[in-house]
């Protein structure tokens, strides 16, 4: 893979910043105490001069200063000027991937862990803006996409980042590029029909005593021992294939397993809807195939017009920016603006706000989760509702309600330290603690320093001298080395030129042999 200069840069930055972090962590052991002037544990609940104690990555105590015993050997960070806030939870995103979608229409066998790029700028950006848990899914340009995973935005490998792997399938009720609404609906329907046919054929083969599948499984190297040797009847509320218990699970095609789990109601699904007409289609599809109770709708565009339908189904929704929908009224010709989040709130839909996944042309502000929540407040959403939409509700949707989303005992130690009121443009994330480890320190954010103060990052040619005393000596040495290199190069170049001249001064059109010999 060709690494672009920006990736190189990012790598160097992250490497150096990570180096700083690890050095810090070595001292802390696994106890961390966070002090803050205000501790917002969950929407609507605040502790003045609060203390959070995190041990082994979990919050053990949350309370006011006087009430909480701080372990004597814990690292203490924070101060009265900070506001402690639970880490934001991104309900659904497709940033940080190699590419958001594949060309194949129906590809539930793909796993996003093969696509996540840990040093993608997106994760750094999420960290900077205080998102501590992300649900990474494929994009909406598919019929049935691959499985996603829940990650934390720190880690050099996918395993380090993983919070929950092999998580949910992504489906799209809106047409994939190159498809129309009718063909998309047909493809979705056929995916499940074909699954059903294949399963029925396998059952029929087993009944007929054919051993083709077993041979195929062995040929493909699948396991047929233990659990895999047993068949299990198909569960599911939508449709069922009778006799599936005759087929050992190991003989089922790997490519069918994910959809089968989906139909059996054992896997979550995120269904992408870009237009209001797709909402009903998504819900009908989920209902027909038995995964309605595990469906979360991802709604963009004018889906607010179908808010009644969403509310009636009782399913939660994830709202994608832009959250102010503008359209032209056909009779008067005037532009009408609708605050999407407010509409859903009024209809009684449980919704989370996510950042834009890049389906449409997106503004940079669309990628900042807290900003979208703040915009929603400005458009009329109650403040607590907005905060819940980026903390507790997505945690619930991801099934991590007892792990993330609020600062309560027993939950993961994902804490933000803000320097002001949360969801304000004047407030910045100063510290991000992920599971008890300080993952981000704004004062040491190299990229911000470069952007705001003009300090060149270390490891780059021009900026070596600027970055603190420690690097100064090295910088000089490097400069000398560079100079030497340049001198050497010049010499080499001159010599080469002489050699060339010598060559060229000789007869151009001499025998080929002589020229070939010389060049050798």
């Amino acid at each position, binding site marked *: 893979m060709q690494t672009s200069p920006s990736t190189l840069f990012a790598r160097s930055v992250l490497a150096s910043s990570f180096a700083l972090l690890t050095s810090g962590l070595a001292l802390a052991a696994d106890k961390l105490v966070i002090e803050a002037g205000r501790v917002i544990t969950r929407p609507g609940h605040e502790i003045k001069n609060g203390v959070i104690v995190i041990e082994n990555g979990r919050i053990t105590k949350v309370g006011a200063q006087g009430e909480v015993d701080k372990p004597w050997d814990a690292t203490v960070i924070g101060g009265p000027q900070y506001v402690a806030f639970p880490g934001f939870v991104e309900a659904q995103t497709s940033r940080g991937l190699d590419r958001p979608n594949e060309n*194949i229409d*129906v*590809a539930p066998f793909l796993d996003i862990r093969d696509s996540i790029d840990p040093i993608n700028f997106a994760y750094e950006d999420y960290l900077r803006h205080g998102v501590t848990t992300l649900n990474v899914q494929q994009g909406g340009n598919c019929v049935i996409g691959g499985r996603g995973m829940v990650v934390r935005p720190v880690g050099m490998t996918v395993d380090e980042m993983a919070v929950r792997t092999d998580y949910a399938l992504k489906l799209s009720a809106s047409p994939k590029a190159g498809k*129309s*609404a*009718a*063909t*998309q*609906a*047909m493809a979705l329907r*056929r995916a499940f029909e074909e699954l059903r046919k294949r399963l029925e054929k396998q059952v029929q083969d087993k009944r007929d005593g054919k051993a083709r599948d077993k041979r195929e499984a062995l040929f493909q190297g699948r396991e047929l021992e233990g659990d895999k040797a047993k068949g299990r009847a198909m569960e599911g509320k939508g449709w069922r294939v009778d006799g599936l218990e005759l087929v050992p699970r190991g003989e089922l095609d790997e*490519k069918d397993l994910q959809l089968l789990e989906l139909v059996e109601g054992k896997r979550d699904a995120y269904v992408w809807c870009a*237009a*209001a*007409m797709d909402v009903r*289609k998504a819900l009908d599809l989920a209902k027909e195939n038995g995964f309605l109770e595990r469906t979360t709708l991802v709604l963009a565009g*004018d889906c607010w*017009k*179908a808010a009644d*339908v969403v509310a009636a189904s009782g399913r939660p929704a994830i709202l994608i920016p832009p959250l102010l929908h503008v359209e032209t009224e*056909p*009779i*008067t*010709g005037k532009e009408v603006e609708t605050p999407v989040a407010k509409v859903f709130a009024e209809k009684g839909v449980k919704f989370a706000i996510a950042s834009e996944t890049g389906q449409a042309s997106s503004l940079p502000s669309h990628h900042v989760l807290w900003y979208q929540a703040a915009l929603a407040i400005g458009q009329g959403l109650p403040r607590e509702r907005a905060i819940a939409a980026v903390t507790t509700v997505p945690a619930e949707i991801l099934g991590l309600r007892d792990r993330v989303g609020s600062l309560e005992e027993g939950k993961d130690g994902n804490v933000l330290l803000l320097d002001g009121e949360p969801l304000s443009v004047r407030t910045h994330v100063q510290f991000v603690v992920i599971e008890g480890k300080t993952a981000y320190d704004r004062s040491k954010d190299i990229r911000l320093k470069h952007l705001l103060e003009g300090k060149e990052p270390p490891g780059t040619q021009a900026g070596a001298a600027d970055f603190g005393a420690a690097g100064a000596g090295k910088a000089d040495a490097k400069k000398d080395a560079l100079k030497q290199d340049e001198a050497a190069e010049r010499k080499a170049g001159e010599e080469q030129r002489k050699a060339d001249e010598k060559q060229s001064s000789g007869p151009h059109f001499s025998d080929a042999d002589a020229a070939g010999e010389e060049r050798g």
Partner: protein
Amino acid sequence: MYALLSLLPLVTASGAPVAPAAAADGRGLVAIRAGTVLVVKEGVVLEGGATVLVRGSKIAAVGKDLLIPGDATVVDYGPDAVICPGFVLADSSLLSSFGSARTAEPSLSAVQAFDPYARYDWALAEGITSAYVTPARMRLIAGQAAIVKLAGGPEVERIVRAPAAVHAAINAEARGAPGYWEPPIPPTSDVGLGVAQRQLPRTLIGATVALRELLVAARGGAPAADFGPYAAMDLGALVQQRVPWLVSVSDAAEARAALALSADFGLNLVLNDATFAGDAADEIAARGAAVVYKPSFNPDASLFNRGKSVDAQWPEPDTAARFARAGVRLAVAPGAGASPRDLRFAAFLARRGGLDPAVALRAITLTPAELYGVADRVGSIEPGKDADLVVLSGLPLEMGSSVLSTWSDGTTVWSAGAGGADGADGADAPLQAQPVVIAAEEVHLGDGHVLRPGEVLLQDGKIAEIGERVARPRGAVVVRGAAVMPGIVDALGFLGLEGSMRTVGSDFRLSRLLAPGDFADRRVARAGVTTVGLSVRQSTPSGVPVLSYKPAAADFDSLVLREPTGVRLRWTDGNRARSGAEVRDLLDKLGKYQQKWAEYEKALANWKPSAAKPEEAKAAEAKSDEKKDGEEKPAEEAKAEGAGDSKDEKAEGDKKDEKKDDKKKKDEPEPADPVTGVWEGEFDLPAPLSGKAKLRLQLINEHGKVRGSLRCDAVSERLVQVQGTWAEKELRLSGAGTQGPVQFAAAIGKGKMAAVLGTGAWQADVDTEQKSKEYPVAARPKPKKAAAAEAGDKAAPDKGKPAPPRLDERLEPLRQAALGKACVIVDVNRSDEILACVDAFAAAGLKPVIYGAQEAWKVKDKLVGRVSGVLLELPYRRNDPEGSVSFVNRYSELQSAGIAVAFHSSAEEGAADLFVRAMYMVSQGMSAGGALRALTSDAARMLGVSDRVGALRVGLDADVVLLDASPLAEPARVLRAWVNGSEVLP
């Protein structure tokens, strides 16, 4: 809750859907009325006013005389509107989506592609309420189509029927499938990367063969593997349900191939777009197939070239008619590429070749509904069907008719004029902006010509076009009737005086009395009289004003035609010797006045901006200053004395004399004229009366003759006009007050007058003081132009620029009459006086209108060409010979002599009978054409407003009257009237 509005229904002002009363449970009743209702079923047409009763979303009843329950909302579109069923698109490209890669994909469903949140207002604006939608095109079998409603939002069930048809093709469309190859997943080395395979069919034969294979496979025969695993399977279900097939064909050969297929497989066949298949019409009829005909015209595209070779197919315009004649069930849809908006025009084009209009209308309503099996819900206006209606300004397939309102499922989903420029910011009143086309069997132009038949277009308050067939601008109302004539002009009427008997001076602005459009005014207009020449009841020798105006005008701006329109003078005096003296006087003054103006105009023409004589300029300025003072003072005085009595004095003309004198003498002090001015005083009332009384005199001295007015409550309730002499420092005045004659004798000292005032009953000594040396000008609102002119004079006094002579309000109408822009009406009866009058006026260069003219018949030969016209007073018959029972019609007598006559009412709302009087005159021998002229154009010409009213001519005001029979030849009634282009409503 009945309300009548011309073509805008009762409730929709904002374009929002009309919610029927108590519609929460869908049981609200709405009664929709219009002049004509086209039921479409069996070609039934209800004319002369019919009602559609709608309950909830369904039609409850249709009929001419329905009993409407009291709680129903009534929506009345007027007698010219036409209601027909909402149109059904037999084929459309509303779902502009591309199809499956495969050439045959029967399971592709239009329901999945239809967006219930999309807005189809542009189609609803053309009356289309239901449409056939297909998920794809350009394939052998593109998918399953559906019939959907175009209005209603996501709450309403929008799918009327699905699957409604199998959308197939065997013409060039079928050959449009791209290459197809799908890799196995995951790609393995067993299956190489393939190339997109070309899909069949490529020819007509191929298409036919392919369809046969599929149909055989669908019935359970040999599997059609080329088309994928799904094609035959999905098709089987559709074939079992006997879903109709909409097969696109182009020419007769393809049509025959499709017919053969349908015969073999028992398909319910509808041929789509059979533009060139006219030759196969009989065979199509024999098989019982139907045709969706699409005329090959796309209004939004440039004209396309058809091909120059011999084989090139040029579409025949009469194909649809051929199909209909052969007995094929015919539906019509807009052509390929044309917008669905042009459905009505497509039906109009389909009529070429003789297609019956009822069949053409059926082709866009009931027939498409029957073809796709939704005729139980849409397609005609019958009880039990959905309330999908279109309200138009004329017949739907008539050129120029436009959609006024569209109803879908019992609610108004679109209304003309709602939203857009109107709405919250709207300023235009839609009623006024609406053009009107009046189509009548007889159009009487007012000057004697008649168009049989003819049409008149009224637009923007003017007559825009007259002809046998005029343009129909979009949104025009079409009114049909038997006869149309210009609005009647009442040459002399009193409508507007409200019973007042006052007399005013000829400089009084009658427009101050008027208020437009009250109930009586409108009734008079609806009786045909649209313009009235208003004057006061009593004429005076010195003149009373005449004003022509339109009583039924909607607002002040359009109320007055011209002010002043003229003057009415009285020639005859009680003292015969003095008959005409004042008028002659006036005419003399007129001569001088005219001369002054002529001089002024000549000087103005010769004037060039240059350094002019400063003295004259200053003199001019000084004069204008004095003028202003003179005017302001009486204005204040008039205000101080309060309203009530008309303080209108006669304008003085002698200011000009003074100014002339001044000019001659060049800034010398004014000559002593002790009499002219305003005198006020107070005196004690003699016995038997008691108390004090105030006296006010306004006098003007004209070379020894003094006239003026005296105001003294004790003497007379009203202003007393006095006249007398000033000789040897003695003033003698006399006049007549309400309580008797008044005598005044006075001696004038320096600004003081010692006088004796005597009435018949008593005498009193009065001392008065001269308050002002100016003879006051009547307090009247200064016309803006004059004020501006004066301001202009003051603002930029061009040195040496000749100043215009002062406007004499009394003489100005006469001067205008001499220029042909005003009228002079003179009351005179005796023949010798008539002649004298006419001579006098002729000397002044005027042609008067003779009023009264009892003996005009005696001198009628001498009057020809010298009078503008004659207004006769009762009686209108003259016994001839004198004393016998035989009589002569005085009107026709004069008219046939070549003298213009006109009818006048001399009444207020009695003017409504003017038309009946004209009918009477015709019955008594007057020519009908002449009577019509007398009512309209001659009257207008006499009043001098023939450039505005009185005839039906392009550019004149749109004052038009609709009758139910030929006017004056038959007993006609005035049915409706328009003033300034808007209808006069009761």
